[in-house]
């Protein structure tokens, strides 16, 4: 199909003026990929798909959404009303809105698995350090975009979530209050906050699209890693991306869309995990909800924050837990990439995955003394992983790595 498209006269005309053909050949159809990639390598293309879905559904939402916290009858606001109008009166508005809300969670599921893949098979190690670092930038911008987006429906969780998080910045010494004031556009979360979050919510995904371009470009310079984690012979051990990985990615897309559409059509709230129950209550600055928790994808970091008595320490730890991802490629000194041949690292990274899940669980639940302790232990394991990493190569007996895949 792609070949026949490239033979058309229209394409030839464009090609003569842009060299599009050689870009498509080198970056897509003939891009040499290792032949032993497993299904964990599907999540990159899925992340791209979800990003496109978010941008497309977002553009349609913006056509009807109104970012205003002005009160309307019944304790609602213009913003809240506009979303209910999308849900009830706009043709297929419910579909667009649910695709967007479920898409946000789907995006994080896919990207977290994509990152886990990179950790397990050592894809962050040289020569792919910069590729990994760009990925961490993408993660941070995604989290920002989702956080800004969650304010837009102007429900109770929108409002109080934004209040709690913007408050955090107040803990930063000296300039803290200034930062939270600039974020909010005032002393408290209100109409100006909604407007600037809306603006940033539109901007961040477009930024993401540009950075994802850089991510893919960096990938095509240093090439894909593979489950064995070894450097491969680009002549003998690769297969052209098309048709091998185009069909495999297409199959992955179909499999991904099954749970995605299940949630969109049958269970959009996902028992309160994707859209929280309290967010159907209009924002009310006089009534604090009994239990404020961010949406599930931000809860691991929220637990790290809550694990410290001092607010400043908590904020610092939360920042550090994300920032440390940037230096991961330089912490790990082992020559072997894949956890398949690194017995100690494998146990460590699996424990790390479990600690993130536990952190996420603790951040979602109402705080109790036991959960707090569990969260603190998980926090210790989280950081322990990074602190131990620089020393692992000294005592780890790696298994013999194959010459060829």
């Amino acid at each position: 199909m792609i070949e026949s498209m490239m033979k058309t006269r229209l394409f030839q005309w464009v090609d003569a003026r842009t060299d599009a053909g050689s870009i498509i050949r080198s970056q897509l159809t003939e891009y040499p990929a290792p032949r032993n990639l497993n299904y964990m390598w599907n999540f990159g293309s899925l992340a791209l798909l979800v990003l496109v879905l978010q941008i497309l559904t977002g553009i349609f939402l913006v056509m009807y959404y109104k970012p205003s916290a002005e009160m309307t009858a019944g304790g609602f606001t213009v913003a809240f009303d506009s979303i209910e109008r999308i849900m009830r009166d706009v043709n297929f508005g419910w579909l667009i809105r649910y695709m967007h809300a479920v898409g946000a969670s789907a995006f994080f599921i896919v990207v977290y698995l994509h990152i886990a893949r990179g950790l397990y098979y050592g894809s962050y190690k040289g020569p792919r350090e910069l590729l990994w670092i760009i990925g961490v930038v993408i993660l941070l911008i995604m989290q920002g975009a989702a956080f800004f987006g969650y304010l837009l429906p102007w429900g109770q969780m929108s409002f109080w979530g934004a209040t709690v998080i913007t408050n955090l910045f107040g803990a930063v010494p000296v300039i803290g209050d200034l930062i939270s004031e600039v974020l909010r556009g005032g002393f408290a979360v209100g109409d100006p906050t909604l407007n600037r979050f809306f603006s940033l919510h539109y901007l961040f995904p477009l930024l993401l699209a540009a950075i994802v371009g850089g991510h893919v470009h960096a990938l095509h310079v240093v090439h894909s890693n593979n489950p064995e984690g070894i450097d491969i012979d680009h002549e003998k051990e690769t297969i052209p991306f098309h048709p091998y990985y185009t069909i495999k990615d297409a199959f992955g897309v179909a499999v991904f869309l099954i749970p995605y559409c299940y949630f969109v059509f049958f269970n959009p709230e996902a028992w309160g995990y994707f859209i929280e129950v309290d967010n159907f209550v209009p924002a009310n600055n006089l009534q604090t909800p009994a239990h404020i928790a961010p949406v599930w994808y931000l809860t691991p970091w929220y637990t790290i924050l809550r694990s410290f008595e001092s607010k400043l320490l908590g904020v610092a730890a939360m920042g550090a837990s994300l920032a440390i991802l940037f230096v991961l490629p330089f912490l790990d000194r082992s020559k072997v990439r894949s956890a398949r041949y690194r017995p100690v690292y494998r146990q460590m990274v699996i424990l790390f995955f479990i600690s993130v899940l536990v952190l996420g669980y603790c951040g979602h639940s109402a705080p109790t003394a036991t959960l707090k302790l569990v969260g603190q232990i998980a926090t210790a394991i989280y950081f322990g992983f990074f602190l131990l990493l620089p020393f692992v190569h000294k005592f780890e007996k790696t298994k013999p790595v194959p010459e060829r895949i």
Partner: protein
Amino acid sequence: MKLTNMKQSIRLSVAAICLALTVPMSASASEGHGHALKDANIQMDHDTLRKGLEVFTNVCMGCHSAKYLRYGSLMAYPELGLTREEVDELRGEHSLMDGMVSELTPADAIESYGKVPPDLSLITRARRGAGNYVFSILTGYEEDPNGKIPEGNYNIYYPGNRIAMPDPLAWMGHSEDETAEIEGQAHAVASFLTFVGDPHQFERERIGVWVLGFLFLLAFVLWMLKREIWKDVKH
């Protein structure tokens, strides 16, 4: 425990996630502030919804609004399917585009009940327990065992037990043979409000069945194609 590969760690993680998911799910089922909610057995068939609409307009709308439900929608939603004449009678002076708003002003409500009754358009989505919660509240009026809260304001399912809503279906002190009648009204209005919370839910699920069916087929075809294309590659 020794974890040998990615597959195994994924399986373990999936198990952990499932475990984590079940806890809040079972918690929400038993939400009711110490009392497990009654199971209302929500039914959204045409007759129940019509009966629920009647209870809503005759009783609840004396105090509550459902401003996101427009009079015109009562005709437009096939699940309700009112005729133009029926809607005209209900709406009086209101236009078809107007939402169903109570005559009770917030100021009057405060004066009479001390609180503004919440809009019910989204009530089943905004409370844990959804329709079961509404049903339980309506049939949850009792005498305060501690004798502190005045009669008619004590509700075992309401957080804190002191509710400003005066027993709308006259549950307190009803006779035995009225039970079925009152429960029927509570059931119908709880079902109606569950429908109003997301009025496109049936259309959504109808379309969803086709979408999922198509996707299973697509996934199967692509899987066959993938096997065919990859059959000569050693990997």
